[in-house]
């Protein structure tokens, strides 16, 4: 599907323009977001100082908002993987303007999600005991624990994603280095590693990108499976389910896509890239989102039918609380925004547009956050021995930190978009030399 060819110098102008200077709106937004993120940091500092009891978690709900946020953000990080890796591997041309934006989401979402294993610790000052290093106690970490799997998986995925983001950035940064001055020049020169555009360099880059696409796909599937296994390995009722690993991977791709659509719409409008992020792109992404919605529905239905049919008492207690009891408002809102809204807005071709895709995506983000909440909290509220049942409600600390992570994500993204072209310039340009 060919885009109307845009003259080459226009492409560069359009994609490089946002890098120069900072409008008032940009600065104000950045300041506001930084303030909210800072508030989250203060809340965390308060929590470290006074004790983790300032959060709302309690026995038996030992995991609350922080784990919901953790799973949520690691899920969002699958945006990049889907778009970049799968679409690179299948040579889908329409992905080109979208890849860097997606890869950036992945890296930042992983950084933010990776904070939560630290935030939820009771004694965060000894977090480094989770890393294997020779010590005077002669102790090593327990590699059997799913939390250790998390540590290795997220480290690997973060390393891979950063490399995956960086590699295609090199040629762009080399081009930019020829046209800037001052601190930007030094930054771009450093990052370009002396890229000169030789065929040897291009060849190596393309080979590396192809390999990385395959590897990162394998890693991404494993990462969210491992996050799912934090729950599935436990024998808590409704957690110990074999479906969790693929369910979470599907959910991650689903929420990642939604996050990507929202981010792209904002980029499109604020940076005036309407010619590069066209309705065609959004319609394709919308179709993918619809597909993931149906897949999510399939997994959800399979899981629920299995539980209901098995009628195991401890599981049915939680099941009832989710569908009819005190968690039912969240449950039905989740079903509505995860399935009904995308199905209607994106399934009916005439309704499919950039705006409806964004609305559906915002709904999906809310719905997927609720889905993680509904997986974690009801099960923990109703353990096997009823004498231990309890209720959970979040405190201001947890809410502040949750909101702050959204602000931090937006803030990191804004800074990134100011430093590097959010649409990959060298990938976008049509191969002029082909035309005779």
């Amino acid at each position, binding site marked *: 599907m060919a885009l109307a060819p845009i003259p080459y110098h226009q492409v560069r102008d359009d994609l490089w323009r946002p890098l120069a200077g900072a409008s008032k709106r940009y600065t104000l937004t950045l300041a506001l977001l930084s303030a909210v993120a800072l508030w989250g940091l203060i809340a965390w500092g308060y929590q470290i100082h006074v004790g983790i009891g300032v959060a709302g978690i309690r026995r038996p709900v030992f995991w609350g908002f922080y784990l919901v946020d953790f799973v949520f953000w690691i899920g969002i990080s699958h945006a990049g993987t889907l778009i970049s890796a799968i679409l690179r591997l299948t040579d889908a041309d329409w992905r080109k303007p979208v890849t860097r934006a997606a890869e950036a989401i992945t890296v930042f979402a992983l950084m933010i999600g990776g904070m939560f294993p630290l935030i939820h610790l009771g004694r965060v000052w000894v977090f480094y005991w989770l890393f294997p290093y020779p010590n005077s106690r002669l102790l090593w970490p327990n590699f059997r624990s799913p939390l250790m799997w998390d540590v290795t998986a997220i480290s690997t995925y973060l390393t891979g994603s950063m490399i995956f983001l960086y590699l295609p950035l090199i040629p762009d940064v080399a081009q930019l280095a020829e046209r800037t001055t001052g601190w930007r020049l030094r930054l771009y020169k450093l990052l370009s590693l002396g890229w000169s555009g030789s065929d040897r360099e291009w060849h190596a880059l393309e080979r590396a990108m192809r390999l990385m696409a395959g590897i990162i796909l394998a890693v991404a599937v494993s990462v969210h499976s491992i996050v799912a296994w934090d729950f599935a390995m436990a024998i808590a009722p409704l957690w110990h389910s074999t479906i969790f690993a693929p369910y979470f991977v599907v959910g991650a791709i689903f929420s990642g896509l939604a996050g990507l659509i929202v981010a792209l719409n904002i980029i499109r409008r604020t940076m005036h890239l309407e010619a590069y992020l066209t309705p065609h792109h959004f319609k394709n992404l919308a179709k993918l989102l619809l597909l993931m919605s149906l897949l999510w529905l399939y997994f959800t239905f399979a899981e629920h039918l299995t539980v209901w049919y098995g009628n195991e008492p401890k599981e049915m207690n939680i099941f009832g609380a989710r569908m009819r009891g005190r968690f039912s408002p969240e449950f039905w809102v989740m079903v509505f925004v995860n399935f009904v809204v995308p199905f209607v807005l994106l399934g009916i071709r005439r309704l499919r547009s950039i705006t409806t895709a964004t609305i559906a995506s915002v709904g999906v983000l809310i719905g997927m956050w609720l889905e993680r909440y509904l997986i974690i909290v009801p099960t923990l509220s109703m353990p096997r021995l009823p004498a231990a049942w309890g*209720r959970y409600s979040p405190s201001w600390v947890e809410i502040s930190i949750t909101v702050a992570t959204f602000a931090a994500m937006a803030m990191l993204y804004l800074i990134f978009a100011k430093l590097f072209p959010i649409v990959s310039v060298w990938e976008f340009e049509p191969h002029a030399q082909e035309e005779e």
Partner: protein
Amino acid sequence: MSEHRWGMAIDLDRCTGCQACVAACHAENNLQVSDPASAAKGRAVHWIRVDRYYEGEFPDVRVKYRPVLCQQCDDAPCEPVCPVYATYHNDEGLNVQVYNRCVGTRYCGNNCPYSVRFFNWFDPVWAEPLQLQHNPDVSIREGGVMEKCTFCVQRISRAKDDAKSEGRPLKDGDVQTACVQSCPAEAMVFGDLNDPESKVSQWAKSGRSTQLLEELGTKPKVFYLERAR
């Protein structure tokens, strides 16, 4: 194969639900005291608790009491999930909690099917003069650390030391956990399951012996004696 394998048996047909065991455990193990606000928030700590179940409608109501404490499971689900080995199985069959090592992920608390694990949400505070009542044999746990019943491991150690210095083997009844010692109905016994003559072994072998959530395969070492229903 270690010399000892500690176990406990509780006769539910004798238990009156008086909760002397709960009070004794608090005193022995320096458990924190909760105010009504934190108790309402689910922050109260009771290493042993008495679960009360009502069956039937008035006037045919039956109340059942079951003291629940850490079952010291041989295949404990809480152990493999701790990323730092803060809880592991020692060779006397105890599920030990190492306070110094715990980083506070609380995964073990989620995976315990008996809900016997408790977390220190803050550094504990005792109103004056309660801090004078502390047992010097038991460490005070700081905020951010998981804790649970230890089968009064400090009493086990002391009894072993005493027996060693007197040059004699431990005999049944030398080690009494605080809860067992304080039960007025003598509904609880504690001892060495490796010793076939010990009271706990005999109670465990009785026809009335059951285990809590046995179907989960955790292999608990607390035996509940109750009339076959």
